């Protein structure tokens, strides 16, 4: 018995130590990708001795929303940057898409490193209500004393001054008749909407049907485009709708791209495509007017072809979740691609936000022109 007691004591101590290590290591391993050295316990200690460790600690704090600690590990280039502005940059504000998102994981890739500074490219994977969104950011890190700090040179979010923006926009209201009215006495026809172009292509993900639709009427229309793929036997293979890849509310004479994806279906099996556009009368407003400025096709930091530009909200209403849909034309005016993307930050009145939508590399050389429309999701209107 006397011999057993020290052994039990040792076992208990070892168990406690292992439990402690297990807890701390499991906390640290959550979502860290690309850590060059495994010596640190990311998320456990505030100081970091390598740039990899520093960026990992920083991103882990962001992921866990340890804002105080994350803010303490940055070096501010602007003295006006407050912790609140720093937090807003990560969690969004004004009901933007970022407000409803969370950082799922991140990949870190070093671009450059020396004894005193380092450049890291981080691919941030966000989960959002509209699906996964990927964001690529380059972080500069600098060694200060024995510590590596993230140099924070992001522009603070725009601060819209208090102002009165006179708006004399147009609005369409819908008055429906009573059920007791005589048949035919109060009929209002559905808006007249027409598909002006259609193109079906094969892609790595499957068949894609895309084109443009125009509201030819003098009233707003809620539009949805459906496509049915018909096989060689004459039977339907699949049918899909444009879902969110269309500007649903089309004002008079407005043109919208549409895109319908058929995953895992090859066009070689398709004999015919049956198109169907449905339009219903809806109340609508012509406000806000959003300008799409400085659009240009470029190659981004990851080598992808993108159409990028800025959205400029010319009205006094906040657009919480702007959604950009772009159609790309070849030199014959044919729609060769339709691409879309959500802007993560809310578009405040009289301010602008950058956007970028991807174009497949194989098509980038063929693109002669493009047309961008903006879907507006405003919380006050929903």
């Amino acid at each position, binding site marked *: 018995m006397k011999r057993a007691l020290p052994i039990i004591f040792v076992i208990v101590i070892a168990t406690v130590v292992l439990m402690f290590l297990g807890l701390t290591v499991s906390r640290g391993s959550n979502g860290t990708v690309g850590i060059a050295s495994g010596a640190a316990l990311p998320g456990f200690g505030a100081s970091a001795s390598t740039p990899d460790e520093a960026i990992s600690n920083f991103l882990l704090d962001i992921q866990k929303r340890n804002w105080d600690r994350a803010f303490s590990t940055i070096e501010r280039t602007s003295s006006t940057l407050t912790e609140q502005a720093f937090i807003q940059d990560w969690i969004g504000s004004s009901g933007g898409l970022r407000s409803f998102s969370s950082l799922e994981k991140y990949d870190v890739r070093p671009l450059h490193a020396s004894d005193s500074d380092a450049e890291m490219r981080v691919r941030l994977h966000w989960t959002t209500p509209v699906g996964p969104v990927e964001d690529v950011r380059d972080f500069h890190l600098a060694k200060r004393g024995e510590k590596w700090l993230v140099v924070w040179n992001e522009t603070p979010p725009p601060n819209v001054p208090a102002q009165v923006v006179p708006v004399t926009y147009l609005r369409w209201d819908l008055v429906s008749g009573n059920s007791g009215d005589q048949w035919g*006495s109060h009929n209002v026809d559905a808006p007249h909407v027409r598909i002006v172009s259609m193109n079906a292509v094969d892609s790595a993900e499957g068949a894609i049907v895309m084109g443009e639709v125009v509201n030819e009427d003098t009233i707003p229309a809620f539009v949805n485009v459906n496509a049915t793929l018909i096989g060689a036997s004459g039977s339907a293979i699949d049918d899909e709708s444009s879902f969110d890849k269309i500007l649903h509310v089309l004002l008079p*004479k407005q043109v919208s791209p549409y895109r319908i994806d058929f995953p895992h279906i090859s066009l070689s099996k398709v004999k015919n495509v049956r198109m169907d556009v449905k339009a219903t009368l809806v109340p609508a407003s012509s406000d806000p007017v959003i300008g799409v400025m400085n659009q240009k096709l470029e190659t981004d930091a990851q080598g992808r072809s993108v159409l990028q530009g800025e959205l400029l909200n010319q009205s006094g209403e906040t657009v919480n979740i702007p959604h950009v849909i772009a159609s790309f034309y070849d030199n014959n005016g044919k729609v060769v691609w339709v691409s879309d993307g959500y802007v993560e930050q809310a578009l405040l009145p009289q301010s602008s936000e950058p956007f970028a939508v991807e174009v497949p590399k194989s098509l980038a050389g063929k693109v002669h022109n493009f047309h961008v429309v903006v879907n507006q999701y405003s919380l006050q209107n929903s």
Partner: protein
Amino acid sequence: MSSSINTACKIHSAWRGSTFLLGLLCFTAMAFAQDVTLHPPSAAIAGQAAAIGTEGSGSATFYLIGPSSSMKRNVHLGREITLNAGELRQSGRYVAVVCNGRCTSAVFYVSPAKPASMIFLVHPSRAPVSQSDLISGVAIPFDEFKNLVLTPATVQFQLTAKGESPAPRGVETRDGIAWFRANSGKSAGALQVQASIKDVIARRVVQQVASDPCSLRIKGQRTSNGILIETEPVRDCSGNPVPDGTIVTFTAKNGNETSTVDAPVKQDVARARMAAKGPVVISAASGVVMGNELHLGAQE
């Protein structure tokens, strides 16, 4: 005769809900059948009283089966069976059956009464101007009991646009329906469409709207905030201003950069503000209609 008795017996049996006993009775009735004559009305009108003459004597059971109603009553043979207005509200085929040990039936038709209301469908509710055969109207007259009036009647259609004299036309109904087709007018505005049969009048309104913009022209100038572009009053080829809210897309090209603004027409003019410092080429489009190009030099 035996077939009518047979039919009547079936009706009688169905009414009573007893098959065996009534079948036996009917068999007996047919075996000893004597002629009972019914004289149905030759020109009954919906909602008007009528009478069916009978021959014979004694009491009998009278059945009346109409398009959407049926009734049963005890009657005396040899007297007229009076049908009140409420019993003949639906137009169509009626079967009168009299059973007194034996059953006899007669068929008569009730015609609709005179038109008292009218369904009037006009399409479309919005019509672009200067389009041929775009507007159509269908009139369907009904009597006061909602019976479709099949008797040919002349419907007077009248289209009246603001500032234009009415254009009446008479169309006779065929199988209870009269219809017309017409061109839309030259001017935007309300088009009153009226259909009438005697004192029954139904009115509808078609909103005649401007067609696609014609010769979309823009002008612009540099301001301290950028470029202010606006269209000249946007009109269709008939000179009608396009409705407010019509979208005009302004596009400014500056080298390889493009800026676009979808601006709504307000009081005949669409305006947009764009920021561009270098020389720009500005164009406008509305729907599938393109406008002119405007070249502006660089900001000084």
